[in-house]
């Protein structure tokens, strides 16, 4: 039994399910980083923002927010897109140039989407270096097998 007009925090999947533009069951308030004040910060210089702290799913969550018929949606969409565009170049460059280094400082301020892109770039770089060193033909142990080796399975006699 919910009192009309009460304010709650609910998970996104629930809000999406309950939202209905015709019936008006719930209205969604934007989290502050998608509101105008923060949007101005992003448009000034997006590359300095710590998106992991703000997110960590800034892009994904922001895209999902557009489901809720908010009048600010066009601005929100635009900000998310521009943020990505301005940050992407640096992420791509650093992923291709940081070989065998400690990249934790770089990655700390990235949201999860950016981290996945960074990892993909690093993998490409590492695979290339491996090939250059002549190690591409070396047969290696399967990563699945390595992981199973480390885990302790529950006793089969139980």
């Amino acid at each position: 039994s919910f009192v009309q007009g009460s304010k709650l925090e609910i998970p996104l999947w629930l809000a999406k399910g309950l939202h209905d533009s015709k019936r008006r069951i719930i209205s969604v308030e934007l989290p502050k980083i998608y509101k105008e004040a923060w949007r101005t910060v992003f448009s000034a210089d997006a590359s300095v923002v710590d998106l992991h702290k703000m997110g960590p799913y800034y892009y994904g969550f922001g895209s999902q927010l557009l489901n809720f018929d908010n009048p600010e949606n066009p601005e929100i969409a635009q900000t998310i897109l521009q943020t990505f565009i301005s940050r992407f170049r640096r992420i791509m460059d650093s992923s291709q140039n940081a070989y065998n280094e400690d990249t934790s400082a770089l990655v700390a301020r990235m949201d999860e989407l950016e981290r996945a892109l960074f990892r993909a770039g690093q993998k490409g770089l590492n695979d290339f270096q491996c090939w250059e060193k002549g190690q591409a033909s070396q047969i290696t142990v399967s990563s699945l097998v390595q992981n199973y080796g480390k885990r302790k399975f529950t006793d089969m006699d139980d």
Partner: protein
Amino acid sequence: RGSSSRSEAKSGRADLIFLIRFRHCCLLRNQRCVLAYLYDRLLRIRALRWEYGSVLPNTIQFHMSAEEVEWFNRYKKSLATYMRSVGGEEGLDLTQDIKPPKSLYIEVRCLRDYGEFEIDDGTTILLKKNSQHFLPRWKCEQLIRQGVLEHILS
């Protein structure tokens, strides 16, 4: 009184719609979570065919559901049929030579006691921990991927 009971009935109905929607959301969410989990397991089982081989160790098979074991067997069969149909008379083993081969024979070191191992000319080799051997690549590939042998580059 008539009108107040009508508005009560109306708000009761609105509550009901809300509750039904809410419960339906939760059910769908649970279903999504279960499907995601099962699908992830399936992808790993499929990867096992490529990375480990066509016979799964007991420890792993023990943790698979009957449906998953059946799925693995059917996938295996499907893959075998396909491999037989390409590359001419004998077919083509796509699960071999995953890394580009540089030579017919390779140097390997044994990582754990495995036992006797027969090579093509009928002779057997004893694979004991830390022993090193010079063996045909195609015979060793699977054992290297399984973590029994280590491929040593010269």
